[in-house]
């Protein structure tokens, strides 16, 4: 009885994870292209994707690696850029059975990406490990294999196509941010100011020489602190516009 239910839950995870896997395949392809121009091999890029499952984080790390940045700056960049997953895990910790054991918690944790978090938190019922594993079973191969193919095939594609695909990752970031700006005006203001400051940093003489990874970290911490102070989030996690 328990096995049958788990199988059904797993299948539901696979079903909901399919569109994510397809999207991952396309986007990780461009990540693979970036990885290649940063000098990474197929294996290095694929293992990086397999063990990290972050778009923004891997992207930033690849830039730092390409510029021969320090281990410390990679570490700090991952900490700051991926910090949101901590909040997502907190939310998911309320979504699982309180008595869920540590092994499954550790298993679920590995797959906490923006998109998998999205489908998990949207469930009507409690989040069961089988569901997470089902989603991960398709999403992770999508992300990893897409990366590998991007490294391999990137050089076969004509420049025009590669240039177009280079934009895909950024377009995905836009697709994550913009809908939230629509629902939450505070986020909209913060996003616009952040983009302006980011642009400004590329124009100011001394600051434009700071590596992009460091710039991202500094801007993130400063802006998020100011935003938290000026626009605190309402207690229930919903914001009024």
């Amino acid at each position, binding site marked *: 009885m328990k096995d049958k239910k788990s199988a059904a839950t797993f299948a539901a995870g696979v079903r909901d994870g399919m*569109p994510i896997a397809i999207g991952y395949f396309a*986007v990780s392809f461009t990540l693979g292209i970036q990885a290649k121009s940063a000098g990474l*091999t197929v*294996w*290095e890029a694929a293992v*990086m994707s397999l*063990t990290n499952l*972050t778009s923004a984080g*891997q992207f*930033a*790390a690849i830039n730092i690696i390409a510029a021969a940045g320090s*281990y410390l700056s*990679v570490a700090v960049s*991952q*900490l*700051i850029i*991926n*910090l949101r997953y*901590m*909040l997502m*895990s*907190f939310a998911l*910790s309320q979504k*699982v059975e309180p008595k869920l054991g*540590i092994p499954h*918690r550790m298993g679920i*944790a*590995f797959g*906490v990406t923006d*998109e998998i978090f999205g489908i998990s938190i949207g469930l009507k019922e409690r989040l069961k490990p089988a569901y997470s594993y089902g989603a991960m079973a398709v999403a992770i191969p999508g992300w990893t294999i897409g990366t590998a193919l991007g490294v391999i095939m990137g050089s076969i594609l004509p420049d025009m196509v590669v*240039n*177009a695909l*280079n*934009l895909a990752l*950024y*377009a*995905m*970031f*836009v*697709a*994550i*941010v*913009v*809908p939230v*700006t629509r629902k939450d005006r505070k*986020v909209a203001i*913060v*996003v616009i100011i*952040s*983009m302006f*400051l*980011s*642009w400004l940093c590329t124009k100011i003489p001394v600051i434009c020489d700071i590596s992009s990874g460091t710039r*991202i970290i500094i*801007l993130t911490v400063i*802006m*998020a602190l100011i935003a*938290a102070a000026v*626009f605190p989030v309402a207690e229930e*996690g919903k914001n009024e516009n």
Partner: protein
Amino acid sequence: MRTEICIYILIMAVITYLIRMLPLVVFRREIKSRFIKSFLYYVPYVTLSVMTFPAILTATGDIRTGLAGFVVALILSWKGFSLPAVAAAACAAVLIASVIL
């Protein structure tokens, strides 16, 4: 695989996994501080915004096609299209723009 790349990957993977794992495993209480909750709420949007702009304009090597892709991405995400759809449409816009321009 080169050793230094292995180390980079290891560092990335461990930090990222700890970030995802610790709240689910260790902290089962809710964060009470409104300030910290707010900070964590804004971090992803600031990070993604800062990474995207102005880099998206120069991602294609031609600021005009980059702008085309950016505008299409903005419009479609505002209208609520899915992640893959937005990415695909933006790439298509770049391709079309690079042929026209």
